[in-house]
C-alpha cells in the first residue's frame, strides 16, 4: 500500500475502531474479547481491500457491513457460539449505577439467535433501513421484517418493564 493510502487507512481505522467495537459488543451481547477479535478481523479485511473501500460512497457503513458478516461467519463456523445467558452471563464489569439495565439488555440480546441480534443492532443501533439491513445480510427485505418483528417481540417480553424503568429515569 502506498504511503498516502496507508495514512488514509490508518486514520480511518482509528476513527472507526471505537464505533465498530461498540457495535461488536452489542452483537456479541457483551463478549468483549470476541468483540475485539471481530473488530481487528474487520479492519484487517478493510486494509486488504482499501483501494476499493476508500472509494465506496460510505466507507463507515461498508465497515459495519464487513463487521456484521465477520460476526455471522464466526458464529456459524464456531458453532458453539450461541449462549443461553442463564448459564453464560459473560458480561463485562459494570462500572456504575446503570448496571442493572445494562445487564438486562445484554442478557436479553444474548437470548436471541446471532442473526436476530445482528438485525436488531443494524436497525436500532445503526439506524439502518429494512432494505439496507437486507443488503448487509444478503437476505430479502421480507426476511428482515420477519426476523425483526420476532426479535422485537422477544425483547419486549424480556425487557418491557426494564425499558420502561429506563425510560422513566
Amino acid at each position: 500500500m502506498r504511503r498516502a493510502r496507508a495514512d488514509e487507512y490508518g486514520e480511518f481505522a482509528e476513527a472507526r475502531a471505537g464505533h465498530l467495537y461498540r457495535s461488536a459488543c452489542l452483537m456479541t451481547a457483551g463478549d468483549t474479547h470476541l468483540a475485539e477479535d471481530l473488530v481487528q478481523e474487520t479492519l484487517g479485511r478493510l486494509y486488504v481491500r482499501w483501494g476499493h473501500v476508500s472509494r465506496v460512497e460510505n466507507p463507515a457503513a461498508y465497515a459495519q457491513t464487513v463487521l456484521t458478516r465477520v460476526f455471522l461467519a464466526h458464529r456459524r463456523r464456531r458453532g458453539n457460539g450461541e449462549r443461553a445467558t442463564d448459564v453464560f452471563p459473560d458480561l463485562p464489569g459494570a462500572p456504575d449505577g446503570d448496571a442493572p439495565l445494562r445487564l438486562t439488555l445484554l442478557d436479553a440480546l444474548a437470548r436471541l439467535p446471532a442473526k436476530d441480534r445482528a438485525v436488531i443492532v443494524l436497525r436500532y443501533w445503526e439506524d439502518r433501513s429494512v432494505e439496507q439491513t437486507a443488503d448487509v445480510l444478503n437476505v430479502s427485505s421480507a426476511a428482515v421484517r420477519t426476523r425483526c418483528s420476532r426479535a422485537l417481540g422477544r425483547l419486549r417480553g424480556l425487557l418491557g418493564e426494564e425499558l420502561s424503568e429506563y425510560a422513566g429515569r
Partner: protein
Amino acid sequence: MPESRAQEPFEDRLSAALRDTGDRFDADRAALAAGGLARGHRTRLRRRAGVLGGAAGIALIGVGGALLLPGGGDSAGARQTPAAALTSSTVPSPSAAYSGDDLLRALKGLLPEGAVGQEEAQGPGPGPGLPPYARLVFDDGKGAAAVGVGLGRVEPGSREVRELTTCPDRTFVAYDACTTRRLADGSLLMVFQGYEYPDRRVDTKWWSAELVTARGQHVTVNEWNSPAEKDAPITRDRPPLSPAELEKIATADVWRRVVDAIPGEPEAGEEAGASATPSRMPEPSGEGIAEAFLSLMPEGLDVVTKGAQETGYAYLVVDDGKGRSLVQVNVQPDMRDSRDELYGDAERRPDGTLVATSQGPGEKGGAGVVMWTVDTMRTDGRRVVISAFNTGAQHQEATRQAPALTMEQLEEMALSPRWTRVR
C-alpha cells in the same frame, strides 16, 4: 422529559437503551487499529504468495514432506488438462469444477523441466470463500524455489485493476525491473522483479506476474529465489522462471476457467466467506436438539438444568456427584462450504464422517476452566459439535478437575445416528 419516554414506542426505547449500553464499551482504538493493520499485512503477504489457505499456509512451506501428494494412480509427469483430471481428484466436491490437485497439475504442466515438491493447493470451493491457489517448490537443478499461483476476480476497469497492474513508485518500493503492458486480448499484465521486503533487508528476491483480463479475471504468479518466502536462506541468485516464463504461466487459459468456476461473490468481496446467505436447509429446532441430547446422555448423571436456543443449540448442566459440568451441542444442517477450514486436520472415519477433537482452556475467562470438544461433520454436511466443561458456567471458576464426560463419551454422543433424525 424522561416521563414521556415511557410513552414512546418500544423501538425508540430500545434504540435509546442500545445507545446507552453501547456507549459504555470503551475501546483502545489505537490498539484495535494496530491489530487490524497487522492482520491486513498478514493477509496481503499470504495473498501475494499465492497462499490463501489460511494461517498455516506460510508455515507449511518448509515442512512439505508432511504434505500428501495428490493422485496416487496418476502417471507421473503426464500433462492432463484440469478438466480431464477431474475424475482423479482426491477430494471430489460436487459443485467445484476444479480441485486443488487440478490446479497443481495445471501449474506443473506449465513449468519448465525440473523437480517439484511441497505441493499445496485449494480449488474454488462450493460456496464463496477463500480464493483458489496452488503452490509448490520447484527446482530446475540450480536451487529450490517457491512458486505459487493465486486466482481471483476484480471489478473490470476499477482502480483496483490499475493498482494491481501499475508498477510501484520507486520512492516506496525498491525493485530491479518492472513492465506493464496491454495484451492483444485486452488483458493488462505487469511483470515485477523486486525483493521480498521493499527495503531489501534480506536478499530474498520476489518476482511476480499480475494479469487482469478485460473480464476481471485476476491471475498472480509468484516466485522466489528461496524455497520459502520471508527470511529463509536463499538457494540461488535469481528466481528460476524468467519474466517470459512468468508471463507464459500467467496467461495460460486454464486459470481463467478456474476463476470462472469461483462462485459469485457479493459486492463486499473479501468478506464473502462471511456470506450471510442462509443455508438451504433450516437449522433443527433447539427443542428437538435438547430432546436428542438428553436421550444420548450416559447413565448416572443428574441433569441440573437444561436449555436451548430457538434453533441449532442446546445445553445441559449435569452432575455426576462430583460437581456441575456444562455440556453443550450445536447442530448445523450443512457446513460443507467450511469443511476445509473446520476440518483441515480432522480424522476421516470409514463412513466419511470427519471428526476433530480438542481439549483446551475455556474461552470465557473462568479460572481453571477447560473445554473438551468433539466436532463432527457427516458426508451430507450435517455438523454436530459437543463441548463439555469442568464447571456449570463457563465464565465461573472450575468446580471440578475434568468435565463429567470423557472424550470417548462425547464422541459417541456426537456420532450417534440420532442426530440425523433431529429436525
